[in-house]
């Protein structure tokens, strides 16, 4: 620890007054200062999380499996009969596989969206007592989301085999789109951190609203590229990248090209904007944190 002395200034000036320096510090803390800390917290949480459970890591599989089972059951009973025809009228994908893929992508979107608020909420003690690269909490949260997604995606291997699904070359585009969807969701979650930390109504509203949000998002049904259905895709931030990822995985193509391109281009700026909001809001949030 023989670093040369560095000068630190704390004053009332907005950090955004020097945007270049702010961005440099954010990315430095995210990828250099906070990398080791993020990894240690990730490993700590992983070791501690499932230690007192009987089912262990099976809990990662359970939500999409249970949701898929429920929707497949409801569909088999004729409770709902959404169209599962693919892009350009293509068919041949089993309903269970279709819903399972949708559920896995949706679950990832939801986790990524809620991650920043959960990260702040579960680390109140550290945030209000220690000055460390706070972006480490976001990086650690991303590790969590990615691990859960990878483990959940393992379900797709037997599912594709069992339901005779074929993997299209669109898979290669689906993967980066899936990554951009995660970044976009984390970015949205980060911008919600100030409001969600100050007003606990926000995370509660999100939790309550998720089932309804899922219904208006084409997770368990196909969204045709016709008016007014396509409006749903443009107005619902969860929809475009989710639909494109799922369509490319199952059918190798998607009809919603424009929305996919626009939201793909928005993903990275949204993530960066979220990081900035997170960074500049933390001191004001720490001031008002009640720590038991």
């Amino acid at each position, binding site marked *: *620890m023989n670093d040369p*002395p560095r000068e630190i200034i704390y*004053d*009332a000036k*907005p950090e*955004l007054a020097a945007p270049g320096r702010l961005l440099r510090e954010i990315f430095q803390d995210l990828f250099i200062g906070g990398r080791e800390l993020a990894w240690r917290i990730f490993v700590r949480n992983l070791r501690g999380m499932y230690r007192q459970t009987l089912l262990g890591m099976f809990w990662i599989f359970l939500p999409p499996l249970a949701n898929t089972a429920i929707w497949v059951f409801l569909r088999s009973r004729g409770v709902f009969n959404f169209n599962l025809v693919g892009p350009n009228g293509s068919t041949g994908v089993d309903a269970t596989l279709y819903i399972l893929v949708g559920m896995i992508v949706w679950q990832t979107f939801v986790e990524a969206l809620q991650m920043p608020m959960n990260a702040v909420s579960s680390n109140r003690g550290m945030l209000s007592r220690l*000055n460390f690269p706070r972006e480490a909490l976001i990086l650690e949260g991303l590790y969590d989301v990615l691990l859960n997604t990878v483990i959940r995606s393992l379900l797709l291997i037997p599912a594709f085999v069992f339901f005779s699904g074929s993997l299209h070359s669109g898979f290669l585009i689906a993967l980066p789109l899936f990554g951009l969807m995660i970044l976009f969701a984390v970015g949205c979650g980060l911008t919600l951190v100030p409001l969600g930390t*100050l007003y606990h109504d926000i995370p509660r509203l999100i939790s309550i609203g998720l089932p309804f949000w899922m219904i208006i998002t084409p997770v368990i049904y196909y969204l045709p590229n016709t008016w007014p259905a396509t409006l749903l895709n443009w107005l619902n931030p969860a929809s475009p990248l989710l639909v494109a990822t799922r369509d490319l995985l199952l059918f190798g193509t998607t009809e919603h090209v424009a929305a996919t391109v626009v939201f793909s281009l928005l993903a990275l700026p949204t993530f960066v904007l979220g990081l900035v909001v997170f960074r500049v809001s933390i001191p004001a*949030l720490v001031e008002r944190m009640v720590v038991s």
Partner: protein
Amino acid sequence: MSSEQAILEVDRVWKKYCRNLRRAMWYGVLDVASQFRFRRASRPPKELLRPGEFFAVRDVTFSMKPGECVGLIGPNGAGKSSLLKMITGLIRPDAGRIRISGRVGALIELGTGFNLQLSGRENIFINGTVLGLKKPEIERAFDGIVEFAELGAVIDDPIKTYSSGMRMRLGFSVAAHLRPQLLILDEVLAVGDVRFRMKCFQHFNDLIQQGTSIVLVTHAVGMLPRVATRTIVCEAGRIVFDGDVQRGLTIYEQGLVDQGNTQQSPGEQHWTRARIVSARTVDQAGQEQTEFCTGDDLRLEIVIECETPVREARLIAAVGSPAAETIGSMATPFQGFRFDLPMGRSVFELTLRKIPLLLGAYYFDISLYGPQLTDFCHRRTGIGGFRVVAPPIDVNGNGISGLICFEHGWRRRE
């Protein structure tokens, strides 16, 4: 002190808070939004207050040189924690500027980030990383940390099996191996037993010798002289004293005594027949005197006003200190001093000869009774405050310390 030498400069810093939670939440939204206004007109700090807000830190200025250990003391609500949080960068000042030259290590609460299900070994690596140490640094310091915490035999057990004292020792030990240029310690001195505490003091003294500056916040002020080289006393968000440790401690205690003076408890407002109007320490000529040396004579002047005569009245005076509460008490009948209280004003004088009290602030609790235990007239607590300002004490085992100076002698028996 030139600014080139200072490791910490706090320059005219202000911090405001809001006690009303709902308002505080809304102000939080506004504060975050204001971060996106690139240019803000700077206003005088006093114009920054919004409805319901108050200043927890007001216009605080001080600086520190390398190798200084400053004890930051003051009663609850004096603004110490807010100041520390600003110095550690947890919250931002609303006005003013803090400049730090060097690496900061902060111990606001020991063991923050511990996972109880993991072993001591795993937690050392986690806690070390949280505090800013790199993996090779932790690996190098690992044996020293375990040895310092005296937990070698149980280091691979989950720390949920540790006692709270063991967890504190582990947390302290990890933090003790930080090598920052500025170390901030908030109420972490009461760690473990006396032997471990002495080890901690030794460690701090070593750090100071090596040029580390320490800011120390504690209510256990008796420990301060062991490490602090300077004291800053805060009251109501302002610095009221900055200088010598022992003088700072007496001013801090005097503040507590004064607080007791001005805050008369509801019970003290009730009296029957006669009341104690005032009590003050005076010199030979009857002029008020509040500073004494150990061994001086002290006179206390007590003024009583009587509405209904009290026969065979009794006065009881107790000397107390914020650190020890009641030190000794004396009542008029003990010396056969008997008196009646006629209507009107009476003045009494209590003389304490060769006061054995050591450095610190003290006060009197005075009660007035009739002849029986049930003949209560009036009681005043925390009045007649005075300070003992000399001789200096030594808490490192080379002089006298504590509250009382015993008349004593040492000899070796043959």
